[in-house]
């Protein structure tokens, strides 16, 4: 794992989810009440990008079958997802977001 620049802070607006590729991984970035989070971007159920999904109340809902994950812990919250999504430590460095991938 290494700290990698993933995006500029202004690219991730409040209440939004954005998908990026960094260090060969698909990552989803979130800004939730001023705080930033990062998880894997490929749903653990079937191939779909969480960044195309519905983000609300600290949870990301996969667009394909509405499986939900907690963005802080990565925990799979409701059917049909049963496998947790990977979470990455994230920090702000000036105008950039860095994640430990």
């Amino acid at each position, binding site marked *: 794992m290494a700290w990698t620049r993933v995006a500029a802070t202004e690219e991730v607006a409040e209440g939004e989810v954005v998908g990026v590729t960094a260090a060969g991984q698909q990552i989803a970035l979130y800004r939730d009440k001023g705080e930033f989070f990062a998880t894997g971007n490929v749903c653990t159920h079937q191939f779909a990008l969480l960044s195309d999904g519905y983000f609300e109340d600290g949870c990301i809902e996969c667009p394909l079958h*509405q499986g939900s994950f907690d963005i802080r812990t990565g925990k799979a919250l409701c059917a049909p997802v049963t496998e947790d999504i990977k979470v990455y430590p994230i920090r702000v460095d000036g105008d950039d977001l860095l994640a430990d991938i």
Partner: protein
Amino acid sequence: MFQSQAILGRMAGCKNPDQIDDHVWPAEGLDSIPDWVYTSDAVYEREVERIFHGRTWNFVALEVEVPNVGDYKRSYVGPTPVVVSRAEDGSIHVFENRCAHRGAEFCRSSRGNNKEFVCPYHQWSYDLKGNLQGIPFKRGVNKAGGMPKDFKNEDHGLKKLAVATRNGVVFASFCHDMEPLEDYLTPEILKDFDVVFNGRKLHLHGYYKNEVPANWKMYHENLKDPYHATLLHSFLVVFGLMVAGNESAMIADGKYGIHGTMASAKKEDKYAKVSDDTKKEMRSFHEGMKLQDERFLEYIKEFDSPWSVTMQTIWPNLIVQREMNTLGVRHIVPNGPNSFVMMWTMFGYEDDSDEMTRHRLRQGNLMGPSGFLGLEDNEALRFTQEGISKSTSDQSVIKLDAGNVGTADSLISEAAIRAMYRHYREVMGL
């Protein structure tokens, strides 16, 4: 050939009146059966509605076919495709094999295991109980499109059937307020049903499937027709295995007269002794013919029952076969008035010795689409459907043991067939 492949296959128009009201039962009542019972499309449609989709329990699977969570099997209730599924909590569910979205028959493999059911067309995803779980892009994309806000998954699941099981046999019904399975099967029938399905774990031997170009009800009648046994099945007679004088019974249930058990008891001797009078009546008796391999004829008494053979017809779609030691179920799938498919599942018990298993498999040569006995019934049914379809006469005669309806004392009787049609006329309003 399949029914659909016949060259001279066109039915006489009078056998298939357009309107249901044009179907009038002959004045002879239960002494005759009008041809249209076997050939009419309108009557068939009403049968599907009032019988297979009505107040009946229909066989769909054996529990041993879906033993683990996520196991599923394609099956049929009447002609309607369904899926039998074992959910996470161990319960069994049956639902129509039709996606709630655009109607695709989504489950294509005969048997399998999965975590959920996903229709390949638009990826609508259902859980193992048939509830709609997920719809792709339900929320639209970039806040455009998607399902309306008031769309509730609970309103758009798969169409579910009621399910009942007994000793490893799974039944389903489109009626959600059906009487309990035991009541439906009736005590007379349960007696012999529970001999085969006695709580011992089953062990599958395998499957056969065949299409018979005849009306589905003829199969029930064939097994309620003890008269034909020694007359059609020359194998029994030539090798002296069964004769008209054997101890036997043709039991109809006392409640509906719709289910039946054809039973017989094998004498101790391998070869039956046949009186000279009886010999003359049976066309194919050949003095002195013996089998090269007689292991076939052995009856190993494994159940507490006076019968060595019980063939049960359980209305509307199940036959339970106990032919000495060879056991199986036959599932009828009607396919219009002129065709049905029979799906056979042969089995033994998990605790059978290897020798017992092989004995059952050898004895299985009696049954099935190549069976020494099974073959001839299929042929006779085909002849009958063909004869009925194109001839000018319009009814068949059932006068044996006249006046008797239901259980009969004699094998030379059509009383059980009369009982079946009494119930049938009532349910069908014909």
